[in-house]
């Protein structure tokens, strides 16, 4: 059993990860100073020691309630936020403290598709200019820009006729496709999708998810796919990470996590998903209480006030993320660990 979480470094030594990971995040911490009143300030640990790895062409699904820090992880990966501590390795090279020209070069390799299709495109810029901007970043010569824009539009299944329109004239699904085309224009290694389909209608959502999968098959791009919707994650992700108040509570392959969720929080999340098959049947008891304020998380395991399995130890000692008997990693004192391999 691994004892000191500070010494848990690469989490990439997973059975399925043969190739070195494209993204290797180690012990990432993002703390914010929140000013209160005139003099007081408080430290909010939005992300507090998160490690994960994504292989080439693989999708990591990141789930959790609002306030769990999953969006902060996304925004730190694309460097909207600065990491307070920890490593972000991109193809083996440390990137967490890049700035200036190096940071801009890094941004070209790590793209993001935003949640709000209504605000993530400049309303005063035509579609072809928005996508063309991505091509400029990659240094595509002006003469080739028009044909590449048309190629990218075709790749996201949008008619070329839309090139001259403004985002205000497009539907949400179309705009999200434009955002994807714009990210692809830079030809990144990783695309972070932060609730990228949450604002779309269910029918449109399926199309966009299928499109993302097709692009992944073509270009071997890796996704960090953030969603609070477990069915979307099950469809998209090869691996799943579950976050609760700034930490990972469970991390494993999609198969492991969905078939045998180890952490009581993950189990509660799964139970809360509306289920057509058992409609009208007895509903599982909902998780009691609210997620705690990240500014003042409970001592010990942050989940203990809501946990049906909590024991005395949980109130004082935070559990490390260790391998459980079911194969995945989970942070829980109660759930049995995997037998030690001698």
């Amino acid at each position, binding site marked *: 059993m691994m004892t000191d979480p500070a010494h848990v470094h690469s989490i990439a030594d997973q059975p399925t990860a043969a190739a070195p990971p494209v993204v290797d995040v180690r012990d990432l911490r993002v703390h914010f100073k929140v000013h209160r009143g005139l003099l007081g300030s408080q430290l909010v640990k939005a992300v507090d020691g998160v490690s994960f790895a994504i292989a080439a062409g693989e999708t990591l699904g990141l789930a959790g309630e609002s306030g769990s820090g999953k969006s902060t992880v996304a925004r730190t990966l*694309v*460097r*909207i936020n600065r990491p307070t501590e920890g490593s972000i390795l991109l193809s083996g090279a440390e990137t967490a403290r890049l700035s200036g020209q190096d940071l*801009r*070069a890094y*941004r*070209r390799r790590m*793209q*993001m598709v*935003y949640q*709000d299709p*209504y*605000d*993530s*495109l*400049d*309303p*005063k*810029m035509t579609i072809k200019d928005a996508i063309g*901007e991505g091509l*400029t*970043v990659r240094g595509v010569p002006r003469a080739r820009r028009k044909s590449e824009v048309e190629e990218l539009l075709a790749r996201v*299944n949008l*008619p070329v006729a*839309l090139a001259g*329109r403004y985002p*205000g*004239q*497009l*539907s949400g*699904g*179309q705009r999200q496709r434009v*955002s994807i085309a714009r990210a692809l224009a*830079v030809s990144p290694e990783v695309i972070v999708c932060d609730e990228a389909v949450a604002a779309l209608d*269910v*029918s*449109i*959502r*399926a*199309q966009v*998810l*299928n499109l993302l999968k097709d692009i992944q098959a073509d270009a071997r791009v890796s996704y960090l796919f953030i969603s609070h919707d*477990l*069915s*979307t994650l*099950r*469809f998209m992700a090869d691996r799943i990470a579950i976050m609760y108040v700034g930490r990972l509570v469970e991390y494993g392959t999609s198969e492991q996590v*969905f*078939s*045998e*969720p180890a952490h009581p929080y993950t*189990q509660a999340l*799964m*139970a809360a*998903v*509306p*289920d*057509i*098959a*058992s409609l009208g049947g007895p509903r599982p008891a909902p998780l009691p209480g609210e997620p705690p304020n990240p500014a003042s998380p409970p001592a010990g395991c942050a989940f203990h006030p809501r946990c049906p399995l909590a024991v005395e130890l949980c109130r004082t000692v935070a559990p490390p993320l260790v391998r459980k008997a079911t194969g995945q990693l989970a942070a829980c004192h109660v759930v049995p660990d995997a037998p030690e391999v001698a």
Partner: protein
Amino acid sequence: MTAPPEGSFLSGQLPTAAVEPAAAAAELAAAVDEPSLGRRALTSLRRDPVALISVIAVIVLALVAVFAPLLAPHNPLQAYPNGLSADGAPVGPGSSFLLGTDPNGRDVLSRLIFGARVSLLVGVVATGLASIIGVLVGGIAGYAGGIVDSVLMRITDVVLSFPILLFCVALIAITGPSTRNVMLVIAFGYWTYLARIVRGLVLSLKEREFVVAARTLGIGHRAILRRHILPHLVPAIIVYSTLGIATSILIEASLSYLGIGVPLPQASWGQMISQGQEYFQTAPWLLIAPGVALVLTVLAFNLAGDWLTDLLDPETSGDRR
């Protein structure tokens, strides 16, 4: 422990392709064509006669200023012998001098027309300069934030804390009166208003997701300012510049009235009012003509500015959902 039963919503089945062609067609149809800005401008002018009159007045004024030499019936600088009566008093409005003459025997109408030139020139150039300074200072302060913002805005506050006319008088006292100096001085007094407005707009714009998205795409700060911030400032800049022209014209008139504006013998409305004041009881047209011209001009620019505000207001122009 609680593995989801097979066939549940968790089993990875999503509603798929059946809806695709129909939905795609609906999406295309949903693309709405908004009326163009020009069309909306015409519609609103038809509904709003006050705006229509003020816009026409501004256009007429601009034409008068441009074609002053063609329109003026006399030379504005020439003292005409028949412009003074036998006892040396100015001649009232009549057939030879439509708006009468001044105490030097010069034609008031011609001076008024050439005065429009000075007013508009000063108004446009001073406001243009002020806008450039204001947008640069406000834009950099708002976008950079931190210490740059603090320093630039404290400088702005210092200038803003002086009454603008007093500030201009003080600067003219240093530089000496000339048309060029009047324009520069007004610009140095007026840029602060735009700087504050632009800073506020940039502060909120830089938090908008499309600006954040542009940054994470890998675009440099200068390109973001030029391509994603500046276009969103244009409506505010146009509106405040229109209002700024009215203010500048008024300041120029005040400076000329005080005798430290546009130097003689060039005609300027403020200086004509100043001179007309002395003769108000015997030759009221000397005061009334430039006074009315000034009031109407400032009013027209202000009303046209209000109309532009309504027309270009980002809240109503389809900028946001």
